[in-house]
């Protein structure tokens, strides 16, 4: 984890037409190798969707946890 530099933190707990994966995928396109994005999502289902998506895109889910009932993920390139 420590080898990844956090490029951005995204709060994806609100509704958005692009959705949590849409918002994150847009940001991952700007991330350089060795960098990561920290995301907060509202529910476990979204967390699982992000992990599935990250695996398909060959991004690394470097860390995951829970904070105040919300789910936190660190997605790296």
């Amino acid at each position: 984890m420590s080898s990844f530099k956090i490029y951005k933190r995204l709060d994806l707990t609100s509704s958005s037409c692009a959705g949590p994966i849409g918002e994150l995928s847009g940001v991952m396109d700007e991330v350089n190798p060795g960098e990561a994005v920290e995301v907060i999502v509202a529910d476990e289902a979204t967390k699982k969707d992000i992990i599935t998506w990250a695996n398909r895109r060959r991004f690394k889910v470097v860390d995951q946890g829970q904070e105040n009932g919300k789910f936190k993920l660190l997605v790296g390139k």
Partner: protein
Amino acid sequence: MLKRIAILGGGAAGTMVANRLAKRLYKELKSEQVEITLFSKDENHIYWPGYLFVAFNLDDPESFKKREKELLNPSVKLQTEEVNKIDLNNRTLVLKSGASYQYDYLVIATGSEYHYEEIQGYDSVVGFYDEIHALKMRETLNSFSGGKIVVNIARLPIRCPPAPAEGTLILDDILRNRGIRNNSEIIFTTPINMIIGIKEAHALLINEFEKRGIQFVPYFTVASVDPQNKVIESQEGDKIKYDLLIGVPPHSGAQVIKASEIGDRMGWVPTDKYTLQVKDHPEVYAIGDATDLPISKAGATADFESYIIVDNIISDLRGEKIKKTYDGSVMCFAAAGLGKATVFRFNYTIPPNPPTPLDTLWWVKLMYNKLYWDITARAIL
């Protein structure tokens, strides 16, 4: 002392802010205590949702373009020139001619730009996101007699994320009306796991897709297009052959945001989700497509945001302490085929609850295409 308000961008967002400010600051403008100047590199103001109608030959490009001068309140000064640099530290805009303009308040409304060139072969697509591709789509559809159609969203975020699904459903109806749906296949591809990223809206749309036999392919991030062999390939390693490719190009923030180094790497401006102020610069606001907010790049978003920015600039000018905050409100009328539409209305905390598609909402959508110029751009309401 004269206060100068600069608005950068003559699209939906910038025009609404300018007109709403001008109406509210009528006295201050008259007594020359305040000056409002809008900078736009284009003489024309474009109503982007119109290209959905142009592509299907339901309307003409001329209906969706007006001269910015005709839309602005006469007390707003219009400067039709590109701004090359925004110098936030010195509160200055540097114009292409080399001239500069010092502001007390700045509203950044520079919108989105398209980048077909970022994906190999992508400029060969037809589409409904700009005039050139919409006219190409209209012409291609005119002689289309059936085949495999792929609709692709290249990358997110995009302007109005429901629009690609709207176009797909209208296309399905048009092919049916022409009796060529049976020998056509429609495949909708997107980088994400949903048609649009809100569960409630996805549920409604996937139901509509299933009813009509439209195939949904999630997790498809386009890597390249081969227009000779008519193949689209994804970063995930999938290939699809097509007869007709309808594409939504990669978007980014405006070039001036990148050149001024005030945005993220895609050129979106770091904006406070509640106050809409630009990070570290309380006298600067961002609105509309230009922001980095994870909401929706929609004219309706800009409409809701404009009231907050206008109120807060005025309260600051008048030395008042009360500030309004934006609650993330968005409202979009989305076509669910030819002749039916639904509405997505939500904010940061309340998800949408879209009604079953209705024909009355389709007529509201069509009517709004005409009313946009007066109600929204000229800010008559």
